[in-house]
């Protein structure tokens, strides 16, 4: 069974999730005894493409001609063409906005069972049974794909990158899909340049209502700066307008899974935990010793976030200086 993995690029570069995807696909292929082909759509240079071999891709299909923005139908057509060309029976995508937009369309097109948000390698490959998150991380579900071809979208930060060295053979891919058939027209793009994306960050520093006011975010931003972290907040904070909605993490906001998550003045309502509980390590600071955040946290301090933050910044700076 061969595996096709769609590696999305951002302005010509692959990100961490792309390497997670290729590593995952390589491990699936090892179970099935097949090879891994990565598909890249858009303009990416040769070095970046062949480097996917370091994570286990044997070949890369380079579809350099593509519409400027994501058109779900055009992308579906291109990926379906790559599935046909490679004869792959497993397709792996990211469980991000792009994967969520395309994977269901491909499921219908290829008559391939879709399991989204998978968190581990398949438990068996014939039949293919794999574990995914359900109830926003409160539980897992085991799902069996009952079709010959399977589509899996991988939850971010759930599979470790495995770098083995090596490079992949890059082949230009003429998919025959006319980008002019795109029905979505992009009128404007607004991007914040140079800002670390919340969903990409290894470390996230987050504040809740216990921060008392939007004016008190200076130490959160300072700590984030010291750690190279992204900043986040709980829902009441973004609802109050203390912080932008993009920073809201939780069930209806962003779902993140960094290595380290700091929760300052966040009580830890179940909806907030749904967005952060997959973090590898959670540190909570809250004045209420009974706050539910301490049930989810690995390390906790009962105290005022505004008092703890300056000390923490000093100590981390000192530790980093050593």
């Amino acid at each position: 069974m061969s595996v096709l993995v769609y590696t999305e690029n951002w302005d010509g570069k692959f990100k961490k999730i792309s390497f997670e995807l290729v590593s995952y696909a390589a491990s699936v292929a090892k179970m099935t005894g097949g090879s891994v082909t990565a598909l890249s759509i858009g303009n990416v240079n040769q070095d970046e493409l062949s480097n996917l071999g370091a994570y286990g891709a044997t070949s890369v299909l380079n579809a350099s001609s593509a519409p400027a923005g994501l058109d779900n139908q055009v992308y579906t057509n291109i990926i379906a063409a790559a599935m046909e060309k490679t004869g792959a029976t497993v397709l792996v995508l990211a469980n991000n906005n792009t994967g969520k937009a395309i994977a269901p369309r491909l499921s219908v097109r290829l008559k391939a069972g879709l399991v989204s948000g998978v968190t581990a390698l398949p438990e068996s490959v014939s039949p293919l049974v794999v574990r995914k998150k359900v109830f926003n991380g409160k539980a897992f579900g085991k799902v069996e794909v009952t079709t010959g071809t399977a589509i899996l979208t991988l939850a971010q930060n759930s599979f470790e990158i495995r770098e083995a060295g090596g490079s992949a053979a890059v082949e230009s891919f003429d998919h025959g899909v006319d980008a002019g058939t795109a029905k979505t027209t992009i009128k404007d793009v607004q991007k914040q340049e140079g800002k670390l994306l919340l969903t990409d960050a290894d470390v996230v520093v987050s504040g809740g209502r216990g921060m008392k006011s939007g004016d008190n975010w200076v130490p959160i931003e300072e700590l984030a700066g010291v750690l190279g972290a992204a900043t986040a907040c709980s829902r009441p904070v973004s609802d109050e307008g203390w912080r932008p909605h993009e920073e809201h993490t939780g069930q209806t906001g962003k779902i993140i899974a960094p290595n380290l998550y700091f929760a300052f003045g966040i009580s830890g309502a179940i909806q907030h935990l749904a967005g952060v509980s997959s973090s590898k390590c959670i540190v909570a600071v809250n004045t209420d010793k009974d706050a539910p955040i301490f049930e989810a946290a690995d390390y906790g301090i009962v105290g005022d976030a505004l008092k703890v933050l300056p000390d923490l910044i000093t100590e981390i700076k000192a530790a980093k200086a050593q």
Partner: protein
Amino acid sequence: MRILVCISNVPDTTTKIRFSNDNTSIDENGVQWIINPWDELALTRAMEIKEDASNPVDHVTVATVGGAGVEPTLRKALAIGADDAIRVDCVGGDAHQVATQLAAVVKSGTYGAILCGIESSDYNGSAVGGMLAEMLGVPSVSAVSSLTFENGEVVITRDIDGGKELVTVPAPFIGVVQKGIAKEPRIAAMRGIMMARTKPLLVLAAVEAESLTRFKEYVMPESKAPCKMIDADNVKELVNLLQNEAKVL
């Protein structure tokens, strides 16, 4: 234009989830059922659009797939303001099964915009909207955080990594919506609840459809070690633990 909002009936998000003895279904004892939060935001936005007379939208229908037990959730959607509701009488099956049923609903009407939430808070599948679009052969836009009409044309904002894109798309289309589409979900007023009782709720027989996946069983996450508490005056110890024990700094 008519808008169709597809809604899913899910356990209240504050529910402590428990499973049946063989772990193949959830224990429904004490579970409150609600409109899936993202679908509720989609419905709220649909109502806002309809109520603004400058928009070419005059009718909002809600549809769901399920047994008679989901009707209270549909009545709730009618109380929020939907004009009528459709339930496809079908229990079980995966997202492909549900999308096939909804595709039949769409084909039986004349909808210009079909809105779905980006995921449901139970299976977190993020699949039905996109599947529906592919079955109908219409464009879809995902991660929609704003939807307006300008001169009769649909203008959508969708979230991309690190920013937003403003896109237009011809009707009919599927909008897969996320947070931001409406500020707060609308709460039904007493008048709406009274009116909802007499609004049309159509029950359709299921069409033939197949599931492509089979849910086997639920697994509870491994219980985690208790939180290690550190004194507020000993922040240095926290940094030490993060560096040397958790190895995350």
